[in-house]
């Protein structure tokens, strides 16, 4: 038998299974009994093993008393602590949150702070229609409200203000998404007008007629300086506006847009017409019939500034000069009041106090609905 290896010797000393009570063990013991070298190595390995074991005893922790097994079960039952992210990860989480918030804000900004669409020619781009629609609808609601407020009771033979062409309505609403509501607005205005010649007329004919009317109005204004020429549906301002629409010019500003009609409650309305005033703004002329049969004329226009004096009747000779009307018989009294953001100048052949009382009964003209 060849000499035994160190591994076999240590396995023998460690009393492993294959050497415990086996033929291999008996063979090894027989070899050691005959081989002095292997016997010496066996003793040396035994000494080494014991020495190593004794050294490891120096590394023992001392007396160890195991706690009750129930303590281990309780420890198992305790909820595992939530693992905390390392410091670096927490910082990254904060940074990611900030970046995400900034990104959302940047992308949401156009939708949150989008201004109202400008001009009739603007049409939504592809993919924009859905996001633009709320803004457009909101704008259309504003536009759709005004003509309803402005509309007087419709009736045959009654002249309505605002000979507004289709292009103007489209310009206020803006965007193809509001086409349906724009049509409703136009229908309202068309009913109020009682006739739809402007809508039916071709654009170039409207432009020609408007320019002619504007020229005529300016000539009259030049012939009688200081006076405002009252026109009916074909007033110079409206015609001029219509003409500008037809030739593609910018629409007039909101300040010069015709205001809604205001009437004195309880008096029959003879006529409601759009007029251009001396300062270039557009107004509405309402003629009502007093109980005596005399006419009461109201000129309604948007107030220039929001911070106007509180509603109060004011003798307004100055205003009269601004809104002097060319009507049969000079009015005996003129008074002006602020009402619902409008500047209303009334004139009639009655005492001024009576006129003030009448102007205290102002109300917005009811809409067609």
């Amino acid at each position, binding site marked *: 038998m060849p000499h035994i290896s160190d591994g076999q*010797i240590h396995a023998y000393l460690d009393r492993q299974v294959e050497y415990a009570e086996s033929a291999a063990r008996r063979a090894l013991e027989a070899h050691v009994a005959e081989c002095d070298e292997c016997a010496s190595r066996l003793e040396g390995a035994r000494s080494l093993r014991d020495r190593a074991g004794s050294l*490891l005893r120096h590394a023992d922790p001392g007396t160890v008393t195991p706690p009750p097994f129930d303590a281990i079960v309780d420890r198992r039952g305790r909820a595992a602590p939530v693992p905390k992210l390392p410091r670096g990860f927490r910082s990254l989480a904060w940074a990611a949150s900030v970046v995400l918030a900034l990104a959302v804000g940047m992308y949401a900004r156009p939708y949150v702070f989008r201004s109202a669409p400008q001009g009739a020619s603007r049409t939504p781009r592809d993919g924009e229609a859905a996001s633009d629609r709320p803004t457009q609808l909101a704008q259309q609601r504003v536009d759709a409200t005004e003509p309803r407020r402005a509309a007087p009771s419709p009736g045959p033979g009654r002249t309505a203000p605002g000979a507004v062409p289709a292009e103007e309505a489209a310009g206020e609403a803006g965007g193809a998404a509001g086409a349906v509501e724009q049509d409703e607005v136009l229908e309202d205005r068309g009913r109020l007008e009682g006739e739809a010649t402007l809508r039916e007329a071709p654009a170039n004919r409207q432009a020609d007629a408007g320019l002619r009317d504007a020229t005529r109005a300016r000539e009259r204004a030049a012939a009688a300086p200081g006076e405002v020429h009252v026109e009916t549906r074909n007033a110079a301002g409206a015609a001029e506006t219509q003409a500008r629409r037809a030739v593609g010019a910018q629409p007039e500003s909101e300040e010069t847009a015709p205001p809604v009609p205001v009437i004195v409650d309880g008096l029959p309305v003879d006529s409601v017409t759009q007029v251009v005033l001396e300062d270039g703004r557009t107004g509405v002329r309402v003629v009502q019939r007093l109980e005596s049969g005399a006419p009461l004329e109201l000129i309604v226009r948007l107030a220039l500034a929001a911070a106007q004096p509180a509603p109060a009747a004011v003798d307004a000779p100055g205003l009269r000069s601004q809104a002097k009307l060319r009507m049969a018989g000079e009015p005996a009294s003129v008074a002006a009041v602020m009402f619902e953001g409008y500047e209303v100048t009334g004139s009639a052949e009655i005492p001024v106090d009576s006129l003030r009382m009448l102007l205290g009964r102002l109300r917005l003209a009811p809409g067609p609905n």
Partner: protein
Amino acid sequence: MAVDWAAVYRQTYQDLVRFLHRLVWDADQAQDLAQETFARALGETPDNPRAWLFRVATNLARDEARMHARRKRHLVLIKGEAKARQEGAADPLEAAVRHERQAAVRTALASLSERDRTALLLWDAGLDYHEIATETGLSPGAVGTTLARARRRLVDAYEGLETRHAAH
């Protein structure tokens, strides 16, 4: 097959603590890791519960060693104060000798390869050759050779430390 962990606990706890102590060199921490090992064992059904316990304990000690490296300075300060108080109550000379021997054994063990050291500690903790082979990846026939080498290197390293210490 369900494991009677209570019985395994009674038979193995002290061996596991001793094994862990030679990895972390802290008696309290060794006991804490041993208890954590048994707590994790509950509900498990390994084929060889004893070998499974030592494998989990080795991994826990390895993780603990990584964390210990991060907080080493703090622990040295606190444990140094605690050890001084503890040793003050016992025989100072005996405590010093024990501490010195333990430090030498620790150094000698650190000079072994990880596989040799693990095999030696597992054998000393009571695992047989087959279990050691399973945990270390050795063949069963190579465990004896590995243990022979580990024992030789441990004794040689320790005696070399003693010789250098005596020379000073």
